[in-house]
């Protein structure tokens, strides 16, 4: 334990109490001085500078610390003035005076010197910020802060923490704080009572602490920790299983989304559409385009992209159908050839017109992060949305194919075109509409995928093979088949992955498909009966 640390601790205790109780504070050390201290700090003295700022109670302290954490605290080379960078894109940056917050306008990047931070410091900073947050009004912020503190407690904050613990009115927050303290106690002091506090916790840090206790010399501690761990283990297994299932479904939903449009164009219409992937890509680029049009509103842009992506891809689909596919009725191999050509053109088009580089699609706030079920199980939100979206799209399509005339007509047209026309079905219109529908759905897939993966010229290529695989595995012409196939393959893959590794898992899935098709030569949901056998 170093002397400076001890001193800080004292300082901290002294200064924190008033912050917690009353808002009475005076601006003692001037802002400039504090910042100066931070800017000039050696790696060893950074923490001290940070805590000084935190303890200062300066109204802009938080802003400084956050700016510092985000690499936005800079010094003007010539004047030595400390500024906060507001916009750091491009060659000229907008800056504001750190102390006053006054906007100073643009400044060339060349003239700024960043005040360096690294991860070790950032960790300290996080602790400091969490400590500040412990005194926030909102109990949720406090709980979040308390959770952040788990595993980050050191001597410096232990006492204030315990002080805070006594004052904390909300049980949940208190609980967290107790655990945070207990982790410290188990790890540093080998306290057996603390082990009991951690017994039920699923938090990884709590488990880590218990694990370290198991390795300890003290037999009593060891036994207690072992017992505590045992109770957690079972719960963890369940969570683990739930998590894997979720992973599987979510991968499956991606497969379903990618394939479902193809289930229409290929499965129902019989067009081997190699450009399907590029239609997905168009959907994804539409999302990007929308976000460019509506800067700062990624969420709104994303929602608007749903109809827009559908429309763009559907229009592209119509163009493809009119210009190429209509001439290739009943010649699947030629549709493969022509759409392969189309796919090359579309890829290169995007490369030339937009950029060969990937584009950034921002994930809106409400889609990032995870839904925390408990400390060991949290479900990523973006994938949850995608899963829901996939199911919605599927339901919608099902409705169209089953409940509207289009569904009946397209099946009639593909089974016997001449006869369907003899029955008065406008085959050309049906072709256009169906292809547009399939393409549009591919566009929707693109919108969703933009939230999971790269938006770049190769996007389509990555999904085309999988899509065909899913459609065929499910049984050509059967939408249910596509859904079940996608979810099954996804789940199998994720179940295998933990023990086989990603590469082998994929290989096994492929081999599984090959073998499965031997057993059911017409996919999961085959078309049965005399007609299918030919």
């Amino acid at each position, binding site marked *: 334990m170093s002397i400076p640390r001890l001193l800080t601790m004292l300082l901290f205790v002294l200064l924190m109490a008033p912050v917690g109780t009353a808002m009475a504070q005076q601006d003692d050390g001037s802002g400039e001085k504090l910042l100066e201290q931070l800017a000039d700090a050696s790696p060893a003295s950074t923490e001290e500078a940070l805590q000084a700022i935190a303890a200062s109670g300066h109204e802009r302290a938080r802003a400084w610390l956050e700016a510092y954490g985000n690499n936005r605290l800079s010094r003007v080379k010539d004047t030595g003035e400390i500024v906060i960078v507001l916009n750091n894109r491009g060659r000229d940056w907008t800056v504001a005076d750190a102390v006053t917050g006054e906007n100073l306008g643009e400044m060339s990047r060349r003239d700024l010197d960043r005040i360096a931070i690294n991860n070790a410091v950032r960790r300290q900073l996080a602790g400091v910020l969490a400590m500040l947050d412990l005194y926030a009004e909102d109990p949720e912020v406090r709980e979040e802060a308390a959770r952040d503190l788990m595993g980050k407690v050191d001597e410096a904050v232990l006492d204030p923490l315990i002080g805070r613990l006594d004052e904390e009115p909300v049980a949940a927050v208190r609980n967290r704080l107790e655990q945070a303290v207990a982790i410290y106690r188990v790890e540093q002091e080998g306290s057996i009572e603390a082990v009991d506090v951690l017994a039920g916790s699923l938090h990884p840090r709590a488990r880590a602490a218990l694990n370290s206790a198991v390795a300890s010399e003290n037999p009593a501690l060891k036994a207690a920790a072992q017992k505590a761990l045992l109770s957690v283990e079972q719960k963890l297994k369940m969570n683990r299983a739930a998590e894997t299932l979720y992973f599987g479904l979510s991968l499956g939903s991606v497969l379903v989304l990618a394939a479902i449009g193809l289930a229409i164009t290929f499965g129902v219409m019989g067009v*081997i559409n*190699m450009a399907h992937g590029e239609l997905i890509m168009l959907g994804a680029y539409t999302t990007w385009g929308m976000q460019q049009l509506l800067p700062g509103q990624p969420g709104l842009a994303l929602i608007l992209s749903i109809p827009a992506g559908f429309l763009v891809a559907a229009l592209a689909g119509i163009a493809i159908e009119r*210009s*190429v596919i209509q*001439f*290739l009725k009943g*010649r699947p*191999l*030629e*549709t*493969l*050839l*022509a759409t*392969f*050509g*189309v*796919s*090359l*053109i579309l*890829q*290169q*088009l995007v490369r*030339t017109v937009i950029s060969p580089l990937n584009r950034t699609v921002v994930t809106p706030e409400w889609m990032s992060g995870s839904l925390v079920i408990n400390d060991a199980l949290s479900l990523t939100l973006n994938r949850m949305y995608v899963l829901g979206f996939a199911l919605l799209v599927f339901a919608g399509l099902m409705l169209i194919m089953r409940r509207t005339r289009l569904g009946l007509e397209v099946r009639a047209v593909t089974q016997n075109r001449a006869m369907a026309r003899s029955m008065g079905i406008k085959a050309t219109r049906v072709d256009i509409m169906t292809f547009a529908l399939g393409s549009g759905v591919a566009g929707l897939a693109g919108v969703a995928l933009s939230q999971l993966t790269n938006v770049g010229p190769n996007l389509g*290529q990555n999904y085309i*093979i999988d899509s*065909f*695989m899913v459609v*065929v*595995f499910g049984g*050509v012409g059967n939408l249910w088949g596509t859904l079940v196939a996608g979810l099954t393959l996804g789940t199998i893959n994720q179940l295998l992955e933990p023990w086989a590794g990603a*590469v*082998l898992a*994929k*290989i096994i899935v*492929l*081999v599984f*498909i*090959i*073998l499965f*098709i*031997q*057993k059911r*030569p*017409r*996919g999961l949901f085959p078309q049965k009966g005399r007609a299918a*056998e*030919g």
Partner: protein
Amino acid sequence: MWLARPLQERSTQLFLGILFLALIAVTALHLALPEGHPLHVSAYTVTLLGKYLCYALLAVAVDLVSGYLGILSLGHGAFFALGGYAMGMYLMRQIGDRGTYGDPVLPDFMVFLNWQELPWYWYGFDMAWFAFAMVLLVPGALALVFGWLAFRSRVTGVYLSIITQALTFALMLAFFRNEMGFGGNNGLTDFREILGFNLRSDATRLGLFIATGIALAIGYVVCRGIVTSKLGRVSVACRDAEARTRFLGYRVERVQLFVFVVSAMLAGVAGALYVPQVGIINPSEFSPIFSIEIVVWVALGGRATLYGAVIGAILVNYAKTVFTGVMPDAWLFALGALFVLVTVFLPQGIAGLLRKRRKTTDDGSGPSDAPTTAEATA
């Protein structure tokens, strides 16, 4: 003999004639004219042509199954690559202790990934006869096992296409794995000599080119022999009405298996000749997209006309060579447009153009060379 039959056919004679003329012409122009002469064919061009011929042989193999047997194989790249790997392993072993690390047995990539000994499946590849046999046997055996499974269970149509694709995809992933012992993503490269000839000498290049030409000729005759035989007609029958063929007493699955295996072996040979000429074999040859591309060559050339496959393969790859050099930024547009235009305006592929011309000249062929009818309606 069924193999002699195609030799009496005008179209085959014409094909072989053109092929051999081309071989002789290239050889002569390469050897006789000095470098710098406008008509001189450089070693670079010779190798390039050799590569096209490999692709042509591969396309012929694919056409045999997809055009005549109705099995749209989207995984023939796998057989090609396996043939290539067999050859690559031979060439690797030929390096001997001249590798970077000087290990007499282990190839370089094994040394630096710390392999202690040669995996068993590398044994024997130091012997040319063994390796060359493997060029035929490995793809053949894979096709046999795979085909036996698939045809026995009557997997047809797109289902078959997709599992061939799954096959090549799985193999690609497997060969990417370094643990497999085939050099992972880098594959096998840095070859030195073949049968004692230095691979970097122009004479060897020319030799390989000629060998490829001959292989193509043989492959073409073999396929043509099958196609013009009664078995060829049975294949077409299987393609169009599999069940009906069974009721006539043909074991459809065996016919399919036979043709599939022959085709796989031809693809293997093509791969084996390809590797020493391009100097590398790596798992991307297994990629499904490559296999799809092969089908595209065939379709572009004209399906179910073996020579169409040859034309398609050479044309597309020539176009690629030219376009990637002349308009590196926009060549995909050109290639894509080529595919689209051919399908829309030449429904029978390029061979359709030629056939139209031929139709007007000769007509009323006898039944013995009748399989052209399959082409007429395909």
